């Protein structure tokens, strides 16, 4: 009796993954950087879902947040600036069996990679995309980003930035085929984890914007929000995410929002004070591009050979002797 039980336990231990199974190296992000919160939430998700590390692919572009794959003990592709999404699309198209995650910053996604962002929403490939939005370029040392608040004094806007900030949520919600949009703030880890988890379980392009503090270049931007819980709006709904009792005690500003209501989602998304967190929009009915294109279909050699021969037939000039043989084919 005891032996089989022991073996059984051993097997469970072997199959169950711990946080360490997903950890790789010591993150080089600044202390207080929101990227750390996202990393912790993602590693927790992988452990809770007991995902096989070899079936995970984290794809990123360039920027502080794009170092993310290096800190995951999974497959990772730290690509080039702005191009994380098309790389991830190629990965998913070739290998629908892999879980694909994308980590991208506000410069990477909303500036240099903006075209890919819009089209990725439209393709609606099944992947979890985390926009690490800290409203400033960090890796290149404090330049204005598309999501920077107007008036930001940066190294390229020493007299204050000139334009209003772009809102990544309303942009995403405006694109055809949008299927999942959520938001969290790095100072509420519970919500970061909950929205990333919901995003992971959504079949389609799950866009999660994490509002992050940059302790180095924009340390004060979100201070009023940290000091006043009323400035954060928790979105509640049976189809949304749940909040712990502890959290509900602090954050009393709550509102019911049905994630299937895109018009209301766009209104809520426009607000920065209070800043909404939770699931803004979800539509499971949008087809995934990789399914439409029948990615991952088996391709036996005979199929390729027959396809090629049929095409060659179309263009072939046969020697006279072969003509009857051809019509027999």
């Amino acid at each position, binding site marked *: 009796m005891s032996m089989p039980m022991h073996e059984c336990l051993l097997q469970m231990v072997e199959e169950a993954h711990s946080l360490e199974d997903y950890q790789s190296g010591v993150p080089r992000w600044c202390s207080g950087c929101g990227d750390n919160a996202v990393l912790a939430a993602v590693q927790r998700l992988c452990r809770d879902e007991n995902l096989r590390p070899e079936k995970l692919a984290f794809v990123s572009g360039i920027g502080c947040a794009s170092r993310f794959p290096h800190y995951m003990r999974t497959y990772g592709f730290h690509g080039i600036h702005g191009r994380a999404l098309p790389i991830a699309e190629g990965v998913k198209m070739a290998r629908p069996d*892999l879980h694909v995650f994308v980590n991208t910053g506000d410069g990477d996604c909303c500036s240099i990679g903006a075209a890919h962002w819009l089209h990725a929403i439209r393709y609606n490939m099944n992947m979890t995309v985390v926009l690490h939005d800290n409203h400033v370029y960090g890796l290149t040392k404090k330049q204005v980003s598309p999501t920077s608040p107007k008036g930001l004094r940066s190294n390229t806007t020493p007299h204050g930035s000139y334009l209003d900030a772009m809102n990544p949520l309303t942009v995403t919600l405006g694109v055809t085929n949008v299927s999942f949009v959520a938001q969290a703030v790095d100072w509420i880890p519970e919500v970061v984890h909950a929205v990333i988890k919901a995003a992971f379980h959504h079949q389609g392009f799950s866009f999660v914007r994490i509002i992050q503090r940059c302790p180095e270049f924009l340390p004060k931007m979100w201070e009023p929000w940290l000091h006043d819980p009323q400035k954060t709006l928790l979105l509640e709904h049976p189809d949304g995410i749940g909040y712990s009792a502890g959290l509900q005690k602090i954050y009393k500003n709550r509102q019911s929002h049905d994630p299937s209501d895109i018009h209301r989602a766009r209104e809520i998304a426009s607000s920065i004070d209070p800043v909404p967190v939770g699931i803004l929009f979800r539509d499971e009915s949008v087809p995934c591009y990789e399914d439409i294109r029948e990615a991952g279909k088996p391709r036996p050699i005979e199929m390729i050979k027959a396809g090629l021969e049929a095409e060659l037939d179309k263009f072939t000039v046969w020697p006279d002797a072969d003509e009857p043989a051809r019509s027999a084919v």
Partner: protein
Amino acid sequence: MNETLTAVHGDDATLEPPVAPRPKAKPAVVTLDECVVEIISDSGEGAQRCGQSLGAIAARMGNGVWTVEIIPAEIQPPARSIAGASGNRIRLGANRIANGGDGVDLVVAFNEQVLLGRVRAGELKPGCTILLECMWRTHSDPRIAAAYRETYEDLVAQGYQVIEVPFEALCKPIVPDPRRGKNMFVLGVLCTVFSFDLKLAREQVRLTFRKKSDAVVRSNLALLEAGAAWADANLDFKYRIPAVRAKEPQIVVNGNTAIALGVLASGMEICAMYPITPATSASHYLSEVFERVGGIVHQAEDEIAACTFAIGASYAGKCAVTITSGPGYSLKQEAIGLAVMCEIPLVVVNVQRGGPSTGQPTKGEQGDALTAIYGSHGDAPKVVMAASTIEDCFYSVVTARKIAEAFNMVVVVLSDSNLATSQQPFPRPRFDEAWLAAPIDQSAVPFGTKPYDWNKDTGLIHRIVPGQPNGMHTITGLAHDRDGRVAYDPVINEEAIRARSLKLATLQKTLKPPPVFGDPDGDLLIVGWGSTRGAIEEAVTRARAEGLKVSSTHLHFLQPMQPGIKEIMARFRRVLCVEANWCDRPEDKLIDENNRRFSALAMMLRSRYLVDIDCWGEVKGQPIKPGTILDVIRARIA
């Protein structure tokens, strides 16, 4: 050739329009060695379809054939404009034909203005025969009628044999819109002129209109028959070009179709592209057929996305291809560097067009050799192959995929718009399972296996593919160590750069010397690459017939270069690169040895072999003519 034509109907130039007279007796069939025909029209009148069909029928007859598309730069240039000529040149021969030839012997033109465009470009042989649509003579707009008459008289005065034919009027009883039907009537006319088997012509018409309704097929067949019968009854010249039907089956496609067939045959599954002339037709054809073999053509949102999408697919284990042309290639450069750095296999096809910038989208040039070899910042070694025939377009893609995966490298295949739209028969490929990629390895890797285990002699790595247990690692475009970890260590950085460079040498050791066309030694060696091959070899043949001691060699690989080139060059007194890209002309006042810019291949050969190689090039956007190269040979040997 031209003399023959004149002899047959030399008196007809003075005949009054609008209809060529019924000959008194059936003309004798004159045997020709070869003939160059052009069919030209406004855009949308189907001259290209007529020309391609004629080429295909000739190939079915067993003639040597090379077709060249004449493409205006605009989709719908104004009607009857000199710059709007759209159509096809077909060179037919008793033997293998490998280029479009020099001047045209026989032209069919649907209006006199597009014809003028070809006359002014110097494409017509003096005194050549012209079948000219004559409805313009009685056009209701007096300016059009006047322009037509003036041009007609001018052409006759210049000695061209102009035969006026009311093509549209002749087609009207058969189709409601003769403007769109007369191309097949003309095909019938030409089939009679060249004594082609009408059975083959009918088959070709059915193939050409395979996607159309039965009614469309029937009316086009009726036009074909009517044209053939009209020519039989009304033209007083008829030719036969001896043909030998090949013993082996041949396929007749253009270079872009050959590239797409190569993608099929290579077993690649994903082609990510963005539309760009003149590369797009390869993706058009691939889109039509790829899904049947489980393949996917992804039209990305831009060129960069197309390249990075392909890189993502390759990274995940399925070597992918992206097909583009110059401007698109420039946009892909950073992504190509990423694939080089991460050692991800990737096939990039660049169907070159005239540059720089937007350049000449529909015209050919060999301007991208250096950007293919040296492009992308930093030291980014990649393999560069150049297809020189239509057949080569097919096999180069198959080979490129294999090299890409065996060496974990980017392989660039250079074609150009000359190959892209030209047709030439070649032996039907025999499918070989070895062309296909092996299935993705998903086996567990031993603990501690490094993703970049650079071999100290060859630089090669054993790639680990996502999904393989124990192989988890992150790859990066940053400098990295054997584990794939970001490393700014000076020693590791040099080791990595050395390894990536060594892979080229490893590949180079497997290559064979290029063959020499002509004697192994002599006074002049011409070195070329890509689509100029047919013209160079014809020029060499003609020069050798004149007693000149000239040979040529053609490079299939531009990077790494094949072995033995130095030894070949050493056996000739002089070496000359002939390329369709720019090199400064020594006769220009300011040009001297301190500032002359050499053609791409000449520059590479000079720097590698320290030989004083000369170069000659032309960037007119037209295929270089064998006669032009012959003149260059004569001048250099004199």
